[in-house]
């Protein structure tokens, strides 16, 4: 049985949203998605899934606080402690196993409620082995960028090209928080923070909520919008140990892609997609992920960024939404956000960002520092 996305709801991403509580933000995302699908959550949904991390929310057992604002009171409901694509995978499994016909998947960021984000990231490090060293945890990204550039042959100028492209295309995306006319030269000259990583190589936190309505084929056919089929989905984790993981090629992305490609019967990824949305919480991550997903040959992702292959109209338009660099880092909602962007492209509803003839897309997520986990989804329309 095929499973499709039939409702897309995304609130505009903002650096801060003092006017909304996190509950009101979730309600806003949910009502947009339900209106898009044309459903009543009180009667038409079999299961609700949220994707969240307690330390990002700032209180324990976040799971318990979710039903009211999603229309899920007294209904099956659970939280996945991970990225939105991991929640989407749960939705696919629940539908394919016959537990539910329609499933809602939600994830959000209320990062502006976090006063000490650096402290939260540092708290994710091993308590005995790494924490005593102290220091800013983003040095982990600096280490990885260094290893990746040396090991793959990509160059830091290529990373600057990614920054410029994603910040600029975000100007066309009405939900983006950080669209700007940043140039390659500007990015390459921004202050080194954790060399070789520079200030503009890092995405900035944003608040926002993404809600998707997912349905089995029979239910999906009755909905308002054209279903975007989830042809394949996968997720994986590399070692939590900084000393053991692969710094050059991110194994979590490779393994998640293999799983999704197997389900979607994708044999030649580089020629299979009209659009890619891959994680770019740091600029080098976009290049690293493109290679891990076999969308670029090893050592060639940077050349693709430089030559315009990744731009709208290029060989493989990548992160034309603006990505995390342009739209903002919405924490565990990042993967779901990019699924939403790809779904709108596949439906032909991406506004000024719309590409021609998008029939199949690949989306990839990473949970952010210091994790080595993420997911991949293959999406398509028609047939």
């Amino acid at each position, binding site marked *: 049985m095929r499973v499709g996305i039939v409702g897309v709801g995304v609130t505009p991403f903002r650096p801060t*949203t*003092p*006017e*909304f*509580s*996190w*509950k*009101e933000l979730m*309600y806003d995302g949910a*009502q947009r998605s*339900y209106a898009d699908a044309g459903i*009543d*959550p*009180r009667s038409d949904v079999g299961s609700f899934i949220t994707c969240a991390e307690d*330390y990002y929310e*700032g*209180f324990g057992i976040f799971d318990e606080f979710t*039903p*009211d*604002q999603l*229309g899920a*009171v007294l209904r099956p409901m659970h939280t996945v402690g991970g990225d939105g694509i991991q929640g989407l995978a749960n939705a696919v499994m629940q539908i394919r196993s016959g537990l539910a016909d329609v499933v809602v998947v939600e994830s959000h960021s*209320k990062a*502006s*409620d*976090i*006063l*000490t984000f*650096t*402290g*939260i990231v*540092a*708290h994710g490090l091993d*308590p*005995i082995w790494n*924490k*005593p060293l102290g220091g800013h945890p983003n040095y982990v990204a600096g280490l990885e960028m260094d290893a990746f550039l040396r090991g793959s042959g990509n160059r830091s100028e290529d990373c600057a090209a990614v920054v410029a492209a994603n910040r600029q295309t975000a100007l066309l995306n009405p939900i983006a928080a950080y669209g700007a006319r940043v140039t390659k030269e500007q990015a390459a000259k921004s202050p080194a923070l954790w060399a070789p990583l520079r200030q503009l190589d890092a995405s900035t936190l944003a608040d926002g909520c993404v809600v998707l309505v997912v349905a089995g084929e029979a239910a999906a056919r009755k909905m308002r919008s054209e279903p975007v089929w989830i042809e394949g989905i996968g997720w994986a984790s590399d070692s939590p140990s900084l000393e053991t993981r692969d710094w050059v090629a991110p194994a979590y992305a490779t393994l998640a892609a293999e799983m999704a490609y197997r389900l979607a019967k994708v044999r030649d990824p580089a020629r299979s997609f009209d659009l890619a949305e891959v994680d770019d919480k740091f600029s080098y991550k976009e290049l690293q992920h493109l290679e891990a997903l076999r969308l670029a040959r090893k050592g060639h992702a940077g050349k693709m960024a430089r030559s315009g292959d990744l731009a709208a109209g290029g060989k493989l338009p990548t992160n034309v939404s603006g990505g995390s660099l342009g739209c903002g880092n919405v924490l565990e909602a990042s993967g779901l956000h990019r699924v939403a962007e790809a779904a709108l492209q596949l439906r032909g509803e991406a506004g000024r960002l719309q590409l021609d003839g998008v029939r199949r897309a690949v989306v990839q997520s990473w949970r952010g520092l210091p994790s080595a986990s993420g997911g991949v989804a293959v999406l398509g329309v028609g047939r």
Partner: protein
Amino acid sequence: MTANIARWPGAELGSKDLENGKVTTQRYRPDAKFAWSAGEAMSRFLAELQQGRLIARECKNCGRILFPPRMFCEECFRPTDEWVYVKDTGTIETYSISYLDTDARRITEPILVGVVSVDGASPKMGIMHYFGEMATGEIRIGMKVQAKWRPAESRVGSVLDIEYFRPLHGVDR
């Protein structure tokens, strides 16, 4: 220790041993600070508390008065319609008499705590709080109570602007 065993074999560790570094420990204090936006509904609720009033929202679809207020009705999944003041009186729905403090130490004056359903709000709408000015033998489910507000100048926009709920005499059911 049990009634039969006065002392277990082996070396006991006390807090002094930890403080004096007799055992290997790793200390870490996470830097985890948050400041939650109260949002539209709770911001108004807190501002009203500071004025010594309790406010709710009405959903005109199901007719419920939602307290504490929320901008959406969780039953109907639609925006709520109007601000409505509710009373600072209510009925004890459930209570407990706590003989331990937060460190699990025995206390001589027990803490009375419970849930008050607030007059003017719909059923199952209320507030958890402390009870005062009543004896442990006096408290009971169904008892009518009223908020004991802190003096206006010391209210800060917090549920603690109510000190506790106390018996409302003369109207007991």
